[in-house]
């Protein structure tokens, strides 16, 4: 019990004193996961919408695969990315193993199916006649797709939250491809794992609290946007 209380006190000391190392780790976490989420939104929303709006042979199989991808284990992604960018791997020439770039790639791979799956469901959820209605009002294909995406903006914001939530809390892939290098590729989750391993529970608790706060703040902002747009 004392351990926890001490941990929490220490955590607040670290937070309030703007400890430069903790601040650096937090900022890097935000930067990496934010960038990865952004990339996943771009790929996920466009591919999800494309799959939702086209009919092709094997569409159901593709949708099952995307839905499976929503639960992709981060360590598997970590392993896959590591092999790909390993010195002798197919993308070894990039020399990005143990860099934040590698972490962004791994996290984007984790978040993309999540965003894609939710976008797909959101677009499919719109009335099938809506597409015809928009086209009948004289929209080009591109205008139609844009209107549909705008119309599905509330569930798409949920995709942003789910995607970001998935990668900010992920540790397996980040530690495998980032290497948890101090001041370079150390993020909140990897640092928590390390401090816990060393028995520095107070710092680990502090990092966890910051992680929770961060996730809460980002979701709070997105929820505010979502609910403000939502009709009463």
């Amino acid at each position, binding site marked *: 019990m004392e351990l926890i209380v001490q941990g929490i006190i220490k955590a607040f000391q670290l937070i309030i004193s703007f400890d430069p190392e903790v601040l650096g780790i937090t900022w890097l976490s935000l930067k990496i996961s934010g960038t990865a989420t952004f990339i996943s939104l771009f790929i996920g929303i466009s591919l999800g919408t494309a799959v939702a709006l086209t009919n092709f042979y094997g569409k159901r199989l593709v949708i099952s695969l995307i839905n499976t991808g929503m639960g992709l284990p981060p360590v598997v992604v970590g392993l896959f990315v590591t092999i790909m960018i390993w010195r002798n791997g197919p993308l070894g020439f990039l020399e990005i193993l143990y860099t934040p770039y590698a972490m962004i790639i791994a996290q984007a791979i984790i978040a993309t199916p999540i965003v894609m799956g939710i976008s797909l469901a959101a677009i499919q959820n719109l*009335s099938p*006649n*809506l597409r*015809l*209605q*928009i*086209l*009948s*009002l*004289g*929209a*080009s294909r591109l*205008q139609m797709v844009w*209107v549909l995406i*705008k*119309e599905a903006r*509330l569930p798409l914001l949920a995709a942003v939250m789910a995607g970001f939530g998935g990668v900010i809390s992920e540790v397996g892939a980040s530690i495998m491809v980032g290497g948890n290098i101090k001041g370079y590729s150390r993020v909140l989750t990897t640092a928590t794992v390390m401090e816990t391993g060393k028995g520095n529970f107070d710092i680990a608790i502090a990092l966890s609290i910051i992680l929770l706060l961060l996730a809460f703040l980002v979701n709070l902002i997105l929820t505010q946007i979502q609910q403000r*747009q939502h*009709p*009463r």
Partner: protein
Amino acid sequence: MNSETLIKIENIILQRGGSTVLDIREFQVQQGRILALIGPNGAGKSTLLLMLAGLLKPRQGKLYFQGRPVENRADLAILRRNAAVVFQEPLLLNSSVFENVALGLKFRRLKNEEIRKSVQSALDYFGISQLAKRSAKTLSGGEAKRVSLARAFAIKPQIILLDEAFNSLDPPSRETIIDDLKRILEETKITAVLASHDREETLRLAQDVSVMNSGKIVQSGKTAEIFNQPDSEFVANFVGTESILEGTVKSSNVGLMQITVAGKSIEAVGDFLPGQNVYCCLRPENVTVSNYTHGKMSARNIFEAKVSKIVRQGFFYKLTLDCGFPLVAYITIPSYEDLGIAKGGTVIASFKATAVHVIRREK
């Protein structure tokens, strides 16, 4: 009547999943007319509407718009820009009423000032300018329907296609929306095709009717013609056996109207203004047939009639009578025998003023 053909299809065959959805040899819509496509569910009405809107490309057969064949994507785009569809659901976007009505105009990249004017006049037409700033998702069913109609009219289409557009509305708002639509179609002279399975809606709006069954058009003609002279059993069953008489209100006094039908006067309950064109609908079971006229009757309408057709239908006879206007009556087998009815014979047909269902009709 303006007989210019706006849109025409020829030898269209459309198959989906092995079954034929549309199989139409010829179908056309005249400029400025209002045509109703009627038929049971699954008859192909909606599919035909989508084709007329340029949302469905005919693979087999020909589609002409304003005399030119619609063949490639560019032709289809032209047709699409000149047609507007209104579906059963209002399909409004989650934004303001103004934004919704402006949608089609924005796709056309018009100037803001132009968009504002067009939206305003479309809203005025449907009496909903006070809703402009409201969120579309907070509207009632009737309001939402008006917005979706205004959105279609805002783009000033050549043709407007209504797919069961009034189905999900409650009766009072349905009535007023149909009246408003009728007025606006007349003012704007926009051609309209409506898919419907509602008799009254068809009678009130349409000047022409095409009846569809399993992908085919089984009969086309003027509205009264279809209802009075169905040329197949299917059409007869679908349009019902009511006699539909075209008339004009002569006078109206305390809820009792004198309506002129084919030079004769029919009394009916209702309060339309004199001069109003109407349909008088009369169910065959409400027509009494007798062979004498002496004595008083509560029925306000008594006509001498010639029996022009006799068909036995199970336990009763269906008589087609000619009173100067056509009238259908059902009588039982004993009555038929007692009265000694014969084809070409003369009888007295009577019906009560309360049995006449009067529907507003435009020219």
